[in-house]
C-alpha cells in the first residue's frame, strides 16, 4: 500500500455556521491507460478513484474521479462549520494507493 503527497488548504478557525473553502491537491499522475511509452508499450492505467471529506465522521463531500481528471488532482469545495472538530480527507485509488490527512478547525 503506497501513500500520497498532498496539500490541504483549510482555515484553522471559523465562526459556527460559516461557509469555508477547503482545497485539496494530491500528487498523482492519473495515468489514463491510453498513453504509450517511447518504446511503444502501453502505460498501464493508474488513477485516483475516490476522494472523501468528512467532518467528525459526517460526510462533507465525495468525488468519484475518472481518467479525464487532470494529473495532480485538485478539488475545491465548501464546508459549513457546525462546531469545532477535525476535518479528514481520504484518497483511494489503483494499486492500493491510499492516504488520509486531517486538519483541526476551531469554532470561534
Amino acid at each position, binding site marked *: 500500500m503506497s501513500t500520497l*503527497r*498532498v*496539500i490541504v*488548504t483549510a482555515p484553522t478557525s471559523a465562526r459556527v455556521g460559516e461557509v469555508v473553502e477547503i*482545497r485539496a*491537491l*494530491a*500528487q498523482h*499522475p492519473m495515468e489514463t491507460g491510453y498513453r504509450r511509452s517511447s518504446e511503444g508499450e502501453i502505460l498501464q492505467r493508474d488513477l485516483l478513484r475516490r476522494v472523501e471529506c468528512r467532518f467528525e465522521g459526517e460526510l462533507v463531500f465525495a468525488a468519484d474521479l475518472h481518467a479525464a481528471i*487532470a*494529473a*495532480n488532482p*485538485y478539488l*475545491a469545495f465548501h464546508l459549513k462549520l457546525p462546531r469545532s472538530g477535525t476535518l479528514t480527507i481520504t484518497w483511494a485509488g489503483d494499486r492500493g494507493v491510499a492516504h488520509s490527512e486531517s486538519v483541526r478547525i476551531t469554532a470561534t
Partner: protein
Amino acid sequence: MRAAALGLLVLCAALSSAQAQRLSGFDFMSPATQALQKDDAQNPGFLWLKDGQQRFDSSCQRCHTAASLRGVAARYPAMDSLLGKPVTLSARINLCQTRHVKGKPLAPESEALLGLETYVAHQSRGQPVQPPVDPRLAPFVQQGRKLYDHRIGQLDFSCAQCHDQQAGRRLAGSTIPQAHPTGYPLYRLEWQGVGSLQRRLRHCMSGVRAQPYAFASDELTALELYLMQRAAGMPIETPAVRP
C-alpha cells in the same frame, strides 16, 4: 561616419526597447493557466516544493536556514572557486551533497533534486534576478551568448531567432515567449510534472533536431548563465506554471 552613427542609434533604440518590453512567460499565458500559478493552494509545483522542504529540514538544515536562502537563486549561476567555472543552483546543491553532506550526488531531474531546487529557488520568489558582479564569469557569459546566437540542428535555428526576433508571434498555435528562465523549476502542463531549465533547453534542442547537450554540461551552464544575465531585474517566480 553618419551611417555608423545612425546604425549605433538604431541599435541602442532596439536594445533599450527590448529591455523596456521584457515580458515573462507568465504574460504570454491564458488567464486560466495564469490562475494556476497565482494560487499557491492550486499550483501543482508546491507538491514538489513540499517534498523539497522535507528533505531540506532533514538534511540541509544542519547548515542552512530557509531565511538564509533568500536571494540565493537570484544570483545563480555563480562561480565555484574550486572548480574554476560557474555552476547552476542544482549543481551547487549536488556539490553540497558530495562535499559537505558526504552523500551521493542526486540524479538530474530526480524528485529529490527537483524538490530541493524548487524549495531553494522559491525562497527568492518576488526578488529580482541579480547576476553576480564577478569578472571571472565574463568568458562564460560570452560562451553562453555565442551558444544562444549559434544556429543548430537540422532545422538550423538559433535560440535568438525564435526568442529574440520572433517573440510574441505564433508557432503552431502557441505564442513564442522571450525565454527568461525566471520561474524554474516549474510545473509544465505538457510534462504534467515539475522540471528544470535544463530539461526545457534539451527539449528545445530536440525540437530543432539537434543533439541536446548533456545534463549539467558546461554548455547548458553557460546558456543558463547568459539567460539569467539577460533576465536581470525580472522577478523570480518559482515555482512557475507554464503550458
